């Protein structure tokens, strides 16, 4: 997908951010992390309801229950059907509890898979919106197979024949995020974060001190600019001046432009080509040292200098 129109100027803007983030203070990075989970930030349903003319949400995994932390359904998007799946956070205390802070359990991922299967059978593209501090860490979730639910969601998403797009709209942490992240195109909002673990979790594990989240964020550098540089995301979606929380309408409008464009690009490709490219993109990720082939760097890329 071309990001020349919006992205050229924009990638330079965030590249500047990334550079500043490399400085020792790490203030910008922490600001980014705060922005990604700003209480007024638009959540999955905020985007879906603005981008679709109509949306039918489905409920339940047909095995055990319904998980309110993950919403899924079919939307009318630019006069065509599109399946939307995403973690959903809550805005006030009551809704936050109801949505389990956007931490889905196995029922959530199984609901996601159910919708993916329907979409694939009906030839409907799948769009996922990622916004979670991680999959739910609870005894009941473990007993009902949290690990297997995530791995199978990854597997099913990779196997889909229809076009797929994943968008990190806020916080994308741990396998709970990746469970919805294996797509043809991976987009990320300007102030989103995408990381192996939340800064708080890393702080407790690596620094053995829950108060080192800021340091952890600095070490992980999980910003959109860096994810683009690492090849983890294909395009960075700009947010309204001041962040997505300042203007939900405009944030949804910009995401809509990027999504629509990406869908159009993917429509033009045969399913087999898309799947091959999907496999190859994930296969390349991860730099390592190979004495035979030299430095095997992933799809890392240069970002144009700011200016």
């Amino acid at each position: 997908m071309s990001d020349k129109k919006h992205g050229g100027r924009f990638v330079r803007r965030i590249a500047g951010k990334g550079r500043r983030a490399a400085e020792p203070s790490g203030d910008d990075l922490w600001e980014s992390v705060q922005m990604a989970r700003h209480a007024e930030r638009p959540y999955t349903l905020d985007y879906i309801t603005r981008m679709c003319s109509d949306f039918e949400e489905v409920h339940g995994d047909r095995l055990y229950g319904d998980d309110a932390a993950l919403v899924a359904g079919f939307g009318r998007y630019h006069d065509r059907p599109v399946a939307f799946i995403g973690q959903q956070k809550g805005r006030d205390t009551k809704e936050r509890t109801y949505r389990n802070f956007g931490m889905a359990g196995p029922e959530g991922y199984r609901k996601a898979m159910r919708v993916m299967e329907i979409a694939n059978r009906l030839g409907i593209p799948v769009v996922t919106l990622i916004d979670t501090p991680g999959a739910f860490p609870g005894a009941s979730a473990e007993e009902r197979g949290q690990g297997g639910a995530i791995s199978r969601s990854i597997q099913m998403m990779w196997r889909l024949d229809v076009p797929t797009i994943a968008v990190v709209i806020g916080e994308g942490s741990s396998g709970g995020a990746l469970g919805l992240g294996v797509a043809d195109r991976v987009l990320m909002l300007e102030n989103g974060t995408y990381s192996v673990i939340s800064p708080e979790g890393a702080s407790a594990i690596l620094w053995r001190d829950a108060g080192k989240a800021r340091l952890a964020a600095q070490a992980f550098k999980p910003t959109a600019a860096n994810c683009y540089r690492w090849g983890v995301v294909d395009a960075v979606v700009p947010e309204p001046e001041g962040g997505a929380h300042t203007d939900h309408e405009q944030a949804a409008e910009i995401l809509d432009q990027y999504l629509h464009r990406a869908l159009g690009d993917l429509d033009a490709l045969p399913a087999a080509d898309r799947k091959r490219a999907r496999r190859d993109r994930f296969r390349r990720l991860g730099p390592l040292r190979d004495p035979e082939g030299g430095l095997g760097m992933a799809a890392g890329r240069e970002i144009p200098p700011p200016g």
Partner: protein
Amino acid sequence: MSKVGRNIHVSVDRLRQLAHRDARPRKIKADAGTCPKCDSHYSADEMRRNLRVCPACGHHFPVTARERLEQLGEPGGYVELWGDLRAADPLQFTDLRPYTERIAEAEKSTGMGEAIVCAELEVRRAPAIAAVMDFTFMGGSMGAVVGEKFARACDYAAQKGVPLIVVAASGGARMQEGTLALMQMAKTVIALDALAEARVPVIVVLAHPTTGGVWASFASLGDITYAEPGALIAFSGPRVIEETTREVLPADFGRAERQLANGQVDAVVDRRELAERIGRVLHILRRPETDGTTGTAPPGLQWAQDGAQKVKSMMDRMRPGATDSGSGG
């Protein structure tokens, strides 16, 4: 179970300690010769001979990847694959110490290049490719090298048309490689489909512990999944769960036996029977040289035709005017 071990030093104080022991996470020391459960003591040689299982109480000690390969393979040994791959440091990551230092130290202390060893071997005369993780190398964590070696193992097994045997022992994704470590979950899950295309099975053995991003990717996608006794198998570890949800977890939370009851694994298999068990299942799953796609019709169809023939001749016999000496009237 034979009682080979010598019991040493059992005091009342020790027994009191033992009563609480299960509730605490087990410390993993590769070569410690004292059983944490029953305090029996073994020499290094005894440990190796006993496959690092306590003969007195059945406690399973951790096994390094290379020793595991020796346990599973034939006496002829195994051929290690892609042993030269080494981690890079894409984030220039530093927590309490720089990542590069941690890697160098792990290499030195374990004698391995990474947290996974891939090899070609035979298990009870069944050729296979094995991908065996090693918890002693940075907690068996999965970074780009583990992901890549695992993916290559899948490709190679598919190409050779032999099964893949995975032994998981991991704390999850390697945090020091950040977002790129997370991506290895996708990479390994996708790589498994090469085996599906080649129609060869994957056998997964879950050793203590198998948690986080490894359990939530390839480790939970085995066609046949065995767990070692007492192994912790979970996406979120007990400590994280207790801290997040304030739940009080039972001592056996996430342990192999409980996960069997939860329907998450096919069997809990004692390490001393593991090679035999894998060999047996590989034998059961081995397809005949000529399967349904070529050669004679498969037996099912043959039987149906036989049946049709029988019905037809019966109908012939029942037709009025038919003369058949054999008809019973």
